[in-house]
């Protein structure tokens, strides 16, 4: 019973935005009196890629199927909670539109009472799942022209 009451007040934030991602604001919203640790992952546009297929990127253009994307972000947050009961707050935010190198594009943050509770793994799981099931796509534009980046994951029934 007590655990259930705690679960209810744990903040879960998830949205698609065209605005700049405000890390301080999001972190404040998922920090509770009991919170002592936050694991934050953020990805940004990489202007110069040296691994695999070396190339330069002028900008990325992101789009999302917003209502489904936000529903799937909620699902990712629920999956995190079912795997790491220690997690207190969760924020999952994807920025869309035209984004230039060195600009943050995505943020996954999880908070917990202590750092040794799985909070790092929870944030890692969150970004990995976002890249698998949340309907967002990016078009890469650079000196060699433009092309859509396609993922590889094929969701299964119930995902």
């Amino acid at each position, binding site marked *: 019973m007590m655990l259930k009451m705690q679960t209810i007040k744990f903040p879960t934030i998830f949205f698609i935005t065209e605005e700049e991602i405000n890390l301080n604001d999001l972190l404040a919203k998922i920090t509770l009196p009991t919170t002592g640790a936050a694991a934050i992952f953020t990805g940004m546009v990489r202007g110069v890629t040296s691994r695999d297929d070396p190339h330069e990127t002028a900008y990325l253009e992101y789009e999302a*199927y917003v209502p489904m994307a936000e529903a799937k972000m909620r699902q990712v947050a629920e999956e995190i909670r079912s795997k790491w009961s220690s997690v207190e707050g969760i924020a999952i935010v994807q920025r869309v539109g035209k984004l230039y190198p060195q600009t943050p594009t*995505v943020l996954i943050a999880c908070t917990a009472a202590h750092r040794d509770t799985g909070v790092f793994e929870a944030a890692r799981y969150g970004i990995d799942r976002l890249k698998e099931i949340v309907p967002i796509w990016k078009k890469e534009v650079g000196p060699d022209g433009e092309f859509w980046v396609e993922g590889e994951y094929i969701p299964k029934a119930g995902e």
Partner: protein
Amino acid sequence: MAAGQAMWSMNKIKVLFFATLRDRTGMKSVELEVPAGMTVQALKDKLSSDYPNLKESMKTILVSVNKEYSFDEAAIPQNAEVALFPPVSGG
């Protein structure tokens, strides 16, 4: 076919296209009347013949019905919002 009969046997759906699929059709969305009970596979076949540019994408396409992932054998419900898109690449 009588008008009343047509109402029973048809299904008005909205189909959304994203990313490469939108580029290939040149459309963000289209409203279609399809036979009631049409499967996702049958809709993919119909769209491939209506928009030959789509054929190439169809092998790796993902489909959602009412914002949940759906699969070839599934029947499309009445007034569904269907979306077609490539494997996702957010982050």
